[in-house]
């Protein structure tokens, strides 16, 4: 970052020493420390620590969810994947609070196991990597459901899970860094647009 940029703590410190004296705001300096404390606390609580206990899904379903998240956004040469980014925890939390999600995802995972067991006589997790990939390639595309109506629930489930996985990944530290987003900081001046590349 350039000299122009200051960190969140810098701005909170600035507030704490009373740069706003004479302001119509009278409350900031006293409360700034508390705010900073909360920010630090949030950062800590966001860091992965210990094994996660699912709030909604059974251990088996949560393992399936984790496997699916990893397939949707895997680790690659540039960054970690959805699992490392905490997408399964995020999805589990929202699902524990939302009955529609419970139906779509809980039911969807059940559907997936039934589908695999009909086709391969194994649960999804017990299928070989090749079999799992074959199943995902079936439910990841709407056109397959048009040819085979039996796939339509699976297609709807996968589309929903894919959306949530992307939400979980691209709101994580890893996902945001993967996009090379720069910002969410305090600047003294906004630098404007760097030279535009040719159209």
């Amino acid at each position, binding site marked *: 970052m350039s000299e122009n940029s200051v960190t969140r703590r810098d701005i909170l410190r600035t507030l704490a020493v009373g740069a706003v004296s004479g*302001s119509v705001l009278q409350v900031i300096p006293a409360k700034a420390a508390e*705010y900073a404390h909360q920010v630090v606390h949030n950062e800590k609580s966001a860091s992965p620590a210990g094994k996660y206990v699912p709030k909604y899904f059974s251990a088996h379903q949560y393992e399936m969810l984790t496997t699916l998240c990893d397939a949707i956004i*895997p680790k690659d040469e540039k960054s970690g994947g959805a699992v490392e980014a905490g997408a399964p925890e995020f999805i589990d939390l929202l699902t524990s*609070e939302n009955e529609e*999600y419970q139906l779509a995802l809980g039911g969807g995972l059940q559907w997936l196991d039934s589908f695999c067991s009909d086709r391969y006589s194994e649960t999804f997790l017990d299928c070989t990597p090749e079999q799992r990939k074959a199943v995902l390639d079936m439910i990841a595309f709407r056109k397959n459901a048009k040819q085979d109506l039996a796939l339509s629930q699976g297609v709807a489930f996968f589309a929903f899970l894919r959306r949530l996985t*992307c939400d*979980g990944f691209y*709101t994580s530290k890893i996902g945001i860094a993967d996009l090379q987003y720069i*910002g*969410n900081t305090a600047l003294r001046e906004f630098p404007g647009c760097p030279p535009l590349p040719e159209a």
Partner: protein
Amino acid sequence: MSQVIRSPKMYDVCVIGSGAGGGTAAKVLTEGGLNVVLLEAGPPVNPEKDFKMLMWPYESPHRGAGVGGHARENFGEFLAPNGAWRIEGEPYTSAPGSNFQWFRSRIVGGRTNHWGRIALRFAPIDFKSATRDGLGDDWPITYDDLAPYYDKVESYIGVFGTRENVSSAPDGMFLPPPKPRCTDLIVKKACDKIGIICIPSRLAILTRSVNGRLPCHYCGQCGRGCVTASNFSSSQVMIPPAMKTGKLTMVTGAMAREVLLGKDGKAEGVSYIDKATRTEKRVNARAVVLAASACESARLLLNSKSAQFPDGLANSSGTVGRYLTDSVGSDGWGIIPQLEKMPPHNHDGVGGMHMYIPWWKFDRKNDFPRGYHIEFGGGRNMPGIGEFSDLLHEEEGYGATLKKRARQVYGTGIGMAGRGEMIPNPDTYCEIDSNVVDKWGIPVLRFHFKWSEYEVRQAKDMQETFRAVIEAAGGEYKTKTPISGERPFGIAEGGKIIHEVGTARMGADPKSSVLNGYCQAHDVKNVFVMDGAPLVTNPDKNPTLTIMALAWRASEYLLDEAKKGNL
């Protein structure tokens, strides 16, 4: 009546609502020496605790989606405490065939905690609408009457912008604008190419220190509320100076039920439900200012029935609740390949648009009356919930391919939002629903809403313009809208733009209006309305700045009248 707890104290003025209008009234009236009691239906706001400024999405376990993912429908969980389309226990209804969405904010500062900070003056011609094209009515005041108050409001709250001499968008007292973002440069160039005016926007955000408030630190998150009060909110900029006078009594959690009429035909106080104790209380005042939001103030007047006003207080004209309008809204977006080549850089800027398109076709004949402006944005914003919803909608697949595509399209979209003028029509109004009360026992509003052909044609023109601009920028326009159905050309449902106004309009004739040019009720001289309700028209400019200018002017008039003993 024995259950009603009476406060013996007599205030000079009772202001109902603490948003843009009520906050302005509280400041001007208390600084003018009057004792004011302010009733606010919501709780106090605490910026340091309530505002999520500079928080990363991953600092919340819900990542911005809110509990159960439900915050998606109310602008996400990081926004300042802001209200909602639906409030538990406080319903409203729509007449058959109507769909009106009513956004309400119950908190000190109201919607100004999260608003878009777009601060546009109405133009001189906007006050003479009927003279201009025969539709609707003229205002009882002119631009020149209001201009000094626009000056006062802008100078006090701080608005950036540039002097441009565009007749549809009058210049004001401006702080310097922030530098353009890449998306601004691209849209500006495209607009130049096809003859559309594109200028720096006018937002109530400080690019220089004003009255000790720190200048903007360019985190791009004004909607979350600003801990340094570098943007305007009533809770941080209007209420504190009013408090400082020692003449303001703030009552939070106070849901106003009725304006009480005395035997002398003047308002003598307000009864309200104290939400914490669920008891009815009453405050006495020599004058009452309704600033509860356009429809809430109309509801209060309609619910204040008496022998003298059987159809609601100050409603001898029968126009309370009528002339309801919202802005015409239609949105669209496109992909700009040029943006794929942008190196990563800080694109945040202020929390809102750095440039915009004011109404530019005022010099020609169009196939709809009045006009619209265009807000636009996009580029490398902080990723959040729904970041790739368009990509996921359009493209399938998963794994490494999906990840690569997300990297490729991130920050390459430009979204556009048209905001235009609706003409009041007889099918659009609100009234009391005689069958339903809210959990405080107060009869609720029933809405009637209809877009006319004028607004639909305007939405069509918006879509065509969005496409023209995106294509002139070398991009691909992505939005597809139907030409018929409930939302032809993507026209938003009534109320969705949250610019509902007009429900207690001002006018020269007491037979067809509720208020005079000073926002004072024709029928009851010590009752004023200072929110969006007095607006005679709803031009293509967001109403907040005008609400504040009208409230400032009306409050000075009220001070004057109080001094003369006329209240």
